């Protein structure tokens, strides 16, 4: 039509407008360029385009340069930038994750991350394990753990075990400990066993939106298939997915992290904690329990209920906690991170636990026991530090 000049939106414009689809996304317009996000980012010093510079590039119209740069893969989706932003811009959920999605669509994905994503698509877990082996960790547990496909009655609690808690040999020990605690409390629970799929949250934060949606659909079909009242999970990423992300796909179920579930039953749990555990412990707040979902008190209340146990805080604690390095795909980018940083965030955290005089670094996320145990081997004066999940301390206090 005469008088109109056709204008095809540039990539820069399309990307910018896509950020508005995220809740509170329009706040990006209020960015002050104060640089707090880039300063607090644990790997910001290594990124060619840390968050504030990404926004600056977006405003200047050259964001296409940002997505040809691979240093964004150093982002571990730890929410430190989001938490500290004075303009309350949803940086992790919006800018960082959307950028990873664009990198992934362009095929600019580090090889080790590709493997984890392809494994998830194929086997339903990033470890590349056979789904048929997903419930093998339950062998020998008494009373036997009910697998929902094998029982014909509803359960009160669906325990969503998660990938690492099902397959990783170290994390399986924490699953067994939690099973013991749930059994001791007389909880009527069951698991999905071989049918369970990855919750997909870390894959989503690594930019694989399509895979996340596929996994959510598969898990949703399973949730519909069985009768239960609520979901309990030991995985903060699964908790985050079911609480905040699945509802966006109209998949809504009541969910709690096991620390919340147990803390709400502390009156029943406390008399079972008979044995003294004479340890000084430092609790590490997982990013997706703490900063992303504001759960700081329940894990601590469980630890404080254990007789003989002394809880100390590390330099970085609660909303200022350090990331273990495993979030946002970091779990599957060890080589990439090491190549770029020659440093591991998990070692930094272990040094803080040693400085706090802790006998044990205590965690509540399945990514963390193996990550911190590896870090202990690398940090001087850390050889006496043990790494334990809260469930393992509860189990120890219960005794046989």
């Amino acid at each position, binding site marked *: 039509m005469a008088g109109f000049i056709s204008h095809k939106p540039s990539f820069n414009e399309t990307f910018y407008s896509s950020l508005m689809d995220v809740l509170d996304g329009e706040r990006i317009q209020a960015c002050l360029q104060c640089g707090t996000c880039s300063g607090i980012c644990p790997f910001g010093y290594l990124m060619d385009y840390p968050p504030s510079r990404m926004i600056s590039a977006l405003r200047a119209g050259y964001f296409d340069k940002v997505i040809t740069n691979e240093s964004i893969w150093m982002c571990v989706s730890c929410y430190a930038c989001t938490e500290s932003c004075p303009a309350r811009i949803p940086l992790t959920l919006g800018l960082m994750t959307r950028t990873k999605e664009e990198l992934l669509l362009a*095929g600019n994905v580090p090889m080790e991350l590709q493997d984890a994503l392809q494994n998830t698509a194929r*086997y339903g877990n990033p470890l590349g394990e056979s789904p048929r082996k997903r419930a093998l960790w339950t062998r020998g547990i008494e009373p036997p753990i009910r697998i929902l496909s094998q029982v014909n009655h509803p359960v009160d609690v669906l325990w969503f075990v998660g990938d690492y808690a099902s397959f990783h040999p170290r994390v399986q020990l924490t699953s067994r400990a939690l099973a013991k605690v749930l059994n001791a409390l007389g909880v009527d629970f069951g698991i999905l066993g071989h049918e369970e799929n990855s919750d997909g949250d870390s894959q989503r934060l690594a930019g694989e939106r399509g895979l996340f*949606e596929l996994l959510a659909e598969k898990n949703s079909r399973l949730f519909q298939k069985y009768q239960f009242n609520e979901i309990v999970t030991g995985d903060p990423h699964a908790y985050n997915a079911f609480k905040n992300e699945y509802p966006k796909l109209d998949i809504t179920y009541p969910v709690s992290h096991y620390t919340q579930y147990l803390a709400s039953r502390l009156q029943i749990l406390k008399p079972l904690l008979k044995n003294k555990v004479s340890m000084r412990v430092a609790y590490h707040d997982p990013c997706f329990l703490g900063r992303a979902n504001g759960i700081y008190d329940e894990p601590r209340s469980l630890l404080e209920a254990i007789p003989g146990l002394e809880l100390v805080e590390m330099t970085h604690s609660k909303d200022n906690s350090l990331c273990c390095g495993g979030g946002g795909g970091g779990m599957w980018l060890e080589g990439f991170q090491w190549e770029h940083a020659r440093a591991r965030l998990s070692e930094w955290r272990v040094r803080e636990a040693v400085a706090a005089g802790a006998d044990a670094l205590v965690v509540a996320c399945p990514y963390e026991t193996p990550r911190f145990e590896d870090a202990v081997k690398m940090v001087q004066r850390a050889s006496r530090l043990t790494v334990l999940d809260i469930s393992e301390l509860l189990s120890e206090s219960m005794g046989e």
Partner: protein
Amino acid sequence: MKIAVPIKLVPDLVEELSIDAGGTSLDYAWMRLKLNELDDHAVEEGLLLKERYGGEVAVIALNDECIDEVLFTASAKGIDRLVKVSGDPPRDINNHSLMQLFVPVLQELQPDLVITGVQAHNDLDGPIGPLLAEGLGYSYVGYVSGIAVEDGSVTVKKEFPGGLIAEMCVKLPAVLGIQAAEHPPRYIAYSKIRQAMKTALIEDCPAAAIQPTPGAVIERMFQPTAGATAEMIEGSPEIVADQLVKLFKELGIF
């Protein structure tokens, strides 16, 4: 240039393999199959050639319950034609029979170049590439890891044991067995695969009759058995370390 990439599915070794009741075949009833790794490289090489020289690439596969997702993934990566040989072929089909199913499809497609994985872990009767070349009357070069197209011919890099690489000129049409694509197979976002599932077309091609083929007949399959020659050293780390040091000394290692 028209390129055809015949691919096949192989048992996924993530699962524990079992032998069927007859004792002469793997139990395929619940087996998970996956794209042969070197066929994945052949698909990637086809895409790289298309990007470099233009043309059309077709992927050809046998019908199987797992095959549609493999074909849609190829489409999402940029493959132009998806051809599925229909019917109900046995999942343990050998390469001589597979060749008989692929050759009529390839004769219909009339490709300038056929590229396929140089081998697969279930090639009991030899790799498929030379059999296709025989069936089509084309030249064959295997263990190829680089292709440059010229007028009516290709120059290929062929790997020999010991790290030797030869450059060979091959007149087209030809069949090439791919050892490795020039880049690792590309990652494709799952959203693009899902899009391809909605939009890409799989062409069904009726299966030709298979003539009985000569070759090895499997009389019996065995699970690997534990050997008795290994000595398992047990005990605490200190005891195991002492025993190892003693053994190394006895063997003259230090």
